[in-house]
């Protein structure tokens, strides 16, 4: 059984009196330890799909199983707890907490979400700081580092809880090309090291090739699935 299984997923949004279908009968299965991308133009449903997989939203219809749990049936609190246990998030705008240092931002989920003992916290945070090459900046605040560095910190924060799944919605959209490639390479490297499943969405064709599996979305439907092995040039 896959890490994520989706059957007949629909997502409708009500805009005034008009109902808009964002996702239309999606069916897919994602294996553990994948490095996978959803691509497609704006409005194709990439973000909506990532929000459903990330338990930030619920489908209008269909079944969605993540890590063996039927996430559609979870209530608000259960979804929050599930996200904290099984998932990491990387956002387009980095979304670091401005009042916390780089170190504290990475440490945050271990304290506030998983209640990990201090020694173990220190070990994990320092190890990740080293992996993302941010050890020297650990005492700086988010407004004292560059966009690329912020996204490195966000990658470390997403991985610190040792999740089964990391979701990244347009993680390179606010970065220049060079930094974007570096971030994708970093994510790929971290995926290799940790065996965590990485799913990212993008409309940047240059970085899509880094994904082992590429799903193409159009008008809320999966129109293509490519298994590239992740060897495309980045």
């Amino acid at each position, binding site marked *: 059984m896959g890490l994520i299984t989706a059957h007949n997923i629909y997502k409708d949004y009500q805009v005034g009196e008009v109902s808009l279908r964002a996702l239309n009968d999606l069916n897919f299965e994602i294996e553990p330890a994948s490095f996978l991308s959803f691509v497609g133009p704006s409005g194709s449903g990439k973000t909506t799909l990532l929000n459903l997989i990330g338990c930030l939203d619920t489908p209008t219809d269909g079944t969605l199983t993540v890590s063996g749990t039927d996430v559609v049936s979870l209530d608000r609190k259960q979804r929050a707890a599930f996200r*904290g246990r099984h998932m990491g998030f990387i956002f387009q705008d980095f979304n670091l*907490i401005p009042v916390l240092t780089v170190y504290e931002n990475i440490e945050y989920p271990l304290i506030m979400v*998983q209640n990990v003992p201090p020694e173990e916290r220190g070990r994990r945070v320092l190890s990740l700081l080293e992996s993302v090459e941010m050890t020297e900046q650990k005492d700086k605040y988010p407004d004292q580092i560059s966009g690329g560095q912020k996204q490195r910190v966000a990658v470390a924060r997403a991985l610190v809880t040792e999740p089964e799944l990391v979701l990244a919605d347009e993680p390179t959209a606010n970065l220049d090309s060079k930094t974007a490639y570096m971030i994708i390479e970093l994510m790929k490297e971290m995926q290799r090291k940790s065996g965590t499943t990485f799913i990212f969405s993008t409309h940047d064709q240059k970085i899509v090739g880094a994904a082992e599996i590429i799903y193409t979305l159009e008008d809320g439907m999966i129109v293509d699935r490519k298994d590239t092995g992740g060897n495309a040039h980045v």
Partner: protein
Amino acid sequence: MYNLLKIALRNLLRYRRRTLLTASLIMIGVVFVLVFMAVTGSVKSLLIGQITDSMLGHLQVHKKGYVASIDNLPLTITLTPKAMQKIDKTIKEIPEIEAYSTRIKFGGLFSNFVETTNIRLNGVVPEMELKTVPLLPTRIIKGEKTLKKGDILIPELLAKGMKVTVGDTVVVIATNKDGSVNGRQFKVSGILESVTGPGGRDGYIHIEDAMEVLRMDQMEISEIVLRLKDFGTLQNVYESLMGTLSQEKNEAGKPIFEVHTWEKLSPFYNIAQMIDIMTLFIKIMLIAMVLVSIMNVMIMAVYERMREIGTISAIGTMPGKILSMFVLEGLSLGIFGALIGDAIGCIIIYILNISHITFNFGRQTGLLLAPHIGVADILMVSATVIVVSVAASLQPAFKASRMEPIEALRHV
């Protein structure tokens, strides 16, 4: 909790100017309440002291029914020597009572041999009276500060109206309880200034002279005035006295004695109550001030940090922790404002004390203002501010904790 508090404090420091303004508002409110309470408390206790220490005493014991007829100064509702023995025994068993004085009170005619007017007289044992109402000598504006047999202390009102001065001989005429009239000559030994409340037409003579004028075979006391060592024990002593004396019944099974605190005997008590009501309104204003300012700041904080709330919620922070984070911000703001307010309030009260500010009350001039605030009052005001701060944070904090992460993350 430490980490939640750390984040809360850093968020407060993040908007330094806003935090400072809100804390200043709370601080000003706390300072205002503390100084107001200290000053009005000082004025109130000074005025109560003037009234109780000049004339009224802290408590009074009468025969049942006397106070209801007090304007007539009845000679038929008095305490016999046997009743006095019981009261004396009870008083001695209460260590909080510092002194007491027995009075024979009666109304009479006052004559300077040319004109006649009415007077209210108190027959007292001077030594007992001075111990019980120690400010009495300060009211003697002319003449001797003591009272001997054959002397009379007359109120200034009468002295002026009847053109009588110290050393003059006057006559007091009174009707005793049997209806027979008697008179006696007195030498004016002193002139008393009046005190606010009863006493404007009150004069003093020796208790034995009063017995002679009223042709009493045995001492029949109109009232017993009590002074306490500590005014704060008033209610306890009252209850203790009542507990014992109310058990004394007459043949009809009715209580023999009645006990009253100064509050029941002086109209000034209403003024004291008005001061308390004003203090209450000031406290309500403080609560409103804290409530509105903290709520405003926290609503702003939630609105401005919507994406942050979405982020921490998305990565799995439970709603309870998000709620705590915002409540702790409000709590910290309240504690900060209260502590600074307490400190500045105490400094202002100290400055008022060393400034030796005086004020006048009635004809009393130069009363020294000595503002004082108790630790219990400071704690009560601070606790109120802190509780209101938490209450004001609850609604915005609850809103933040209930926010759907997806909606919060979309916020621009």
